[in-house]
């Protein structure tokens, strides 16, 4: 667990050990990415493209100017939230794959409040919409949390299924009671302008939700290594019998992390609705919950890793879309890279003997 390494920074104790582990962690981050890009390169070669050229182009598309960099950060914004929401659960040993559904419902709630609340309340509309989103999403993940904690219902199945339910509910509402009368199909009315999150670098869409996302990551780091609750969650994730024997309540830990995960996912949905798209429509989440899971896995639940991972995937997404416009390279190459990263992120690299000869398994 990379978690141990940075979080329990016990002062003046085994500096060498800490350096060694820091190195280990960065390898674990870099190697899956390198492998993924190698796999992507093979595919590019197969369709007759020069991978170096393509990657160079993607890199410059993602980072080479302020406008492009802003686009990358903007694409990274929802991932910050979904990755944190996922990591909170994963480090507790709860395999919650329902962040996407909570993100969607949070977005729907924020978009609805952003248009339904009266303009007259002024800037209050923003915190109220965000609060609504967080409560809805927290309730949403509270359900599988209770099912797991009290009835031992497998959380992978329940959260996966709830994603479909969330999609269904959202689809039903935006085609029914919430359907906009002016702007066509499958979408709500555009929110009041007072409900919009401020843009940071116009004309790019980068908005203050990005800062909220960073704050979330920071709060997560603080929670996981500096609070008793975060410590308890870690112990539950490492060994449930042990955690129980030292007096930690497993059911309430599980329910609490699911609710926190929901709060964060809902906040993410609100940020996306109020900051990016200004309404809710079908296809609101481009799989952000799942990409966020890839980020969390790659980061091995570390806060710093989440920031880097989110920016990496944000860069892939923003470069991928533009590159498709100017060349024959299909956007799917981005999906391939993303999937490969996910697979190799969960491989226990320590078990590969390549560079760790002679270590105890």
């Amino acid at each position, binding site marked *: 667990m990379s978690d141990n390494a940075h979080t329990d920074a016990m002062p003046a104790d085994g500096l060498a*050990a800490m350096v060694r582990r820091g190195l280990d962690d960065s390898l674990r981050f870099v190697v899956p990415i390198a492998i993924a890009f190698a796999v992507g390169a093979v595919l590019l070669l197969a369709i007759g493209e020069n991978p170096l050229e393509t990657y160079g182009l993607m890199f410059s598309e993602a980072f080479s100017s302020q406008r492009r960099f802003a686009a990358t950060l903007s694409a990274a914004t929802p991932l910050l939230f979904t990755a944190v929401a996922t990591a909170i659960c994963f480090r507790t040993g709860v395999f919650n794959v329902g962040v996407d559904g909570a993100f969607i419902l949070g977005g729907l709630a924020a978009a609805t409040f952003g248009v339904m609340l009266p303009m007259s309340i002024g800037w209050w509309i923003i915190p109220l919409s965000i609060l609504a989103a967080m409560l809805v999403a927290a309730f949403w993940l509270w359900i599988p949390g209770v099912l797991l904690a009290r009835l031992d219902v497998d959380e992978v199945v329940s959260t996966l299924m709830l994603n479909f339910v969330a999609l269904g509910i959202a689809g039903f509402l935006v085609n029914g009671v919430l359907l906009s009368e002016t702007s066509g199909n499958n979408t709500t009315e555009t929110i009041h302008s007072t409900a919009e999150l401020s843009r940071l670098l116009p004309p790019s869409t980068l908005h203050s939700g990005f800062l909220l996302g960073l704050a979330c990551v920071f709060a997560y780091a603080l929670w996981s*290594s*500096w609070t008793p609750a975060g410590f308890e969650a870690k112990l539950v994730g*490492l*060994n449930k019998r*042990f955690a129980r024997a030292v007096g930690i309540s497993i059911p309430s830990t599980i329910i609490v992390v699911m609710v926190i995960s929901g709060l964060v996912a809902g906040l993410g949905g609100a940020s996306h609705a109020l900051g990016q798209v200004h309404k809710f429509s079908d296809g609101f989440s481009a799989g952000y919950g799942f990409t966020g899971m890839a980020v969390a896995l790659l980061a091995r639940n570390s806060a710093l890793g989440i920031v880097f991972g989110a920016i990496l995937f944000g860069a892939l997404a923003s470069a991928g879309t533009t590159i498709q416009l100017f060349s024959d390279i299909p956007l799917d190459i981005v999906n391939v890279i993303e999937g490969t990263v996910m697979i190799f992120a969960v491989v226990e690299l320590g078990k590969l003997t390549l560079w760790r000869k*002679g270590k105890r398994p």
Partner: protein
Amino acid sequence: MSPEHPRTDRSVSTRIGARDISRNYGLVQANNGVSFNVTPGQIHAVVGENGAGKSTLMRILQGLEKPDSGTVILNDDPVQLRDPQQAIRLGIGMVHQEFMLAPELTLLENLVLGDEPMRTIAGPIAIVDWKKALTEARALEKRAGVAIDWDRPTATAPVHIQQYVEILRLLRRGNDVLILDEPTAVLAPQQVSKLIALLKQLRDQGASIIFISHKLHEVVALADHVTIMRRGKAVASASVDELDIAAMTRHIMGDAPADPSEQARAAVVLPDARRILRVEGLCAVTLDRSQALDNISMDVFQGEIVGIAGVAGNGQEELMECLAGLRPMSSGSISLNGAELAGKENMDFRRAGIGYVSPDRAHEGLARLASIADNVMAGSQHAPAFLKGPFRNLPAVGRAARQRLADLDVRYGALSDPVSSLSGGNQQKLVFARERASKPQVLIVSQPTRGVDLNGIAAIHAILKRHCEGGGCVVLASEELDELIALCDRILVLSEGRMVGAVRNEDATPETIGKLMLASGDGLEIAHV
């Protein structure tokens, strides 16, 4: 690849050995220039205090770990072992301190796992030949002179049977060098003598055996030769006839003046000692094949150590778990200083002042993937001393962790190392360091000295005594009758989940207790004391 050596070649002088092996972990010199030789057909004991480097040396001999310098010797020649698979091909097999059988598989499946007998049914398609596997199993069983129910799921088999299967598994692969790392730590006394008989028989059939133990009387009963390790070095090696227990102890301890010989504890006679823990009519149903408990009542007074004895699997662990609040009881009462605890959660038991030392160190006593600091500080995360507002005061946590470990002389590298890097005995001391820190009034202690060396045992016994002198009390379950007799004011005996007798300290001998342990309990008058 080095040439594969012929097995059981009696003409060589060293079947397996080490020449000048060193291995460091960070600043810890686990092995420091160790040399030793095991001749063919010898039982070679390796002894030494916790952390002396025994397990490290064995992992090197088994190819699981590479030495920084020095070589492994096989049949008089140096070899470079790449991995355990190669070691197995060369005839070297190891039974680890923690068993490595797959718990969900049956014993038979575990026996053949990784090397299943196959039967071709058509062309290249082959299936596992379970009939052949069973025949082989029966043959091994006979060779070893033990009886095993091969269809039993491994998790439900008693520990000593699991251990037999581990050994037979190695024999089946043709391994004639058997390395056993503290095999007796988990066994009851009767089972130990059976294991000793089995190992002697295997030796007579030509096997070379390396045997690690902290119990020197076992070494004397079993081994031909003994090598003593201290702080990473092999400090003495001699035939068992030449070294008596006192001499071995001297070598193990070095110059340390510690006196491990136990002073039997005089029974406390506090005139009007307060009753602290009262258990009345405790019953618990069978869960996951555990022993049910039937109408158990007992009182524990201030300053007392009450022992729980019984043949392994007669409900001792279940009773201890009930007392710690980790197992639900179906009826009855547990009260602490008059306050009822029945029906409450484990954390309420802890809050009320009950601490617990689990017999299952690897899975319950410790979180093996967590750091040393996290393990020793777990459970204290809400203590005001370790909080600053809503946040953990990590510097204070680190200081306290170091203090707790130092108090019990736990040897470790860095606080952030995983707890699994500690030697077995140091792990156990860490558990005590944690449980003691919350200042519980009652300590529920199960098998506290498994795999702990003489100094460690003395330290743990001292902790228990000090705890009682400080006004606390202890309930102690142990398979070591000597330990119970030396420490306890009263010993209660369980059989099939029922309390079948109680013996006062002055009447306690292995015979009186042993007789009660073996009685079925029916029609037996419970001697009230």
